[in-house]
């Protein structure tokens, strides 16, 4: 299945294939082998894409019930269509919707929220590219839908522990809006049949 997601002007298309046959070298005997490929808008994938792929893969592995499909491969391909800031959280949201749409068994849903910590200490959610450049630190969180637990946190820049806690609290509140969006989209889809 293919789904695309765009907060503001950032847009990512996600395609999920699986559970499919895995190559013998990559198959795991007790779980599904999850693979994420992130393709930038221009150029070849570089080190930044590779590190983001690993973050996405670890987040998805935490929610997908891979033990139900051993020796299979699940491939998630993300194509960046446009980038106007908050790219990683857009990729996280697209990944979750792709997993949901494909009918893979999940323990919980997740969403991505980016916070920018400005030099004067204010917190901005879903910053644009300009705000990201001017910020002191950019924090991205993957928040699970069950009890708003944190699945993944990554920081670029420096911030104090209290500031990080405040950003996390703001992100957890913002996650409610995203989960409600997931619920509304699924409702719309099943109301047609």
């Amino acid at each position, binding site marked *: *299945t293919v789904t695309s997601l765009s907060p503001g002007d950032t847009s990512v298309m996600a395609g999920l294939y*699986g*559970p*499919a*046959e*895995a190559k013998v070298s990559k198959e795991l005997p007790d779980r599904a082998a999850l693979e994420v490929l992130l393709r930038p808008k221009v150029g070849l994938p570089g080190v930044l894409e590779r590190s983001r792929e690993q973050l996405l893969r670890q987040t998805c592995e935490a*929610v997908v*019930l891979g033990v*139900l*499909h*051993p*020796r*299979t*491969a699940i491939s998630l391909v993300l194509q960046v269509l446009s980038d106007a800031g908050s790219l990683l959280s857009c990729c996280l949201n697209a990944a979750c919707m792709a997993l*949901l749409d*494909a*009918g*893979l*068994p*999940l*323990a*919980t*849903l997740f969403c991505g929220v980016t916070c920018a910590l400005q030099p004067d200490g204010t917190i901005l959610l879903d910053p644009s590219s300009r705000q990201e450049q001017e910020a002191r630190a950019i924090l991205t969180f993957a928040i*699970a*839908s*069950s*009890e708003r637990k944190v699945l993944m946190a990554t920081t670029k820049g420096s911030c104090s522990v209290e500031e990080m806690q405040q950003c996390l609290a703001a992100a957890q509140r913002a996650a*409610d809006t995203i*989960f*409600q969006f*997931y*619920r509304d989209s*699924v*409702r719309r*889809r*099943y109301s*047609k*049949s």
Partner: protein
Amino acid sequence: MAAEHGTAAEALVGQVVLPGDLLLLPAHYDEDAEGERLRLSAGAAPQGRLLCGPGLRRSGAGLLVTKCGLLRHRPAGGGAYWVDSQQKRYVPVKGDHVIGIVTAKAGDVFRLDVGGSEPASLSYLAFEGATKRNRPNVQVGDLIYGQFVVANKDMEPEMVCIDSSGKSSGMGIIGQDGFLFKVSLGLIRKLLAPKCEIIQELSQLYPFELVLGMNGRIWVKAKTVQQTLIIVNILEACEYMTAEQRKQALAKLSGN
């Protein structure tokens, strides 16, 4: 959100549920109650086992939803809950009747592609009236309609073309010509429901042969190629059309 700390399962029947939602069951389904309770009266005895269907997993207090879709309930036989979800990828389930494509002949077994993560195996003896001397005439690329006898996550799926009494009951090699195409699993379940409107309306249009595989594959054969393709297009479009649009499309075709 609505079902974070658990909502009663009955309240959500027929509504959309998302992975992570916790469904609470009525107390009398809980067989391992805490502490010991002597059941002297027959009043509150559990009425049989609750079946936890696709899309649900038992977890502690209740059922955890693992797929998004509509929650369904069947009260018969102790009760069953399951999630009706839309998906295109098939996962083999024991007892399902599917259409497989023969991809290889390896000694005594045929390898069939059923659309899952592994090819299924089919022994040459699993046809009606087949013996070691009387082998079935199966070539690579043939279509086979059979059912799974072994299908779990740990083993390679195995198919047979006979039922438990040794009769073929409609299973076996699907004949020449016809058209094979793939649709979503939800549409197949809709078409397999008793007294399906779509099939009844189509049968009034042209006579045709139809084989539905639970793996999302449909084989159609009508008298001419054009009629076959018309039926294929209508079945593919049925996923997105409402009943009204479908009736209009069929009226236009039968008018021509």
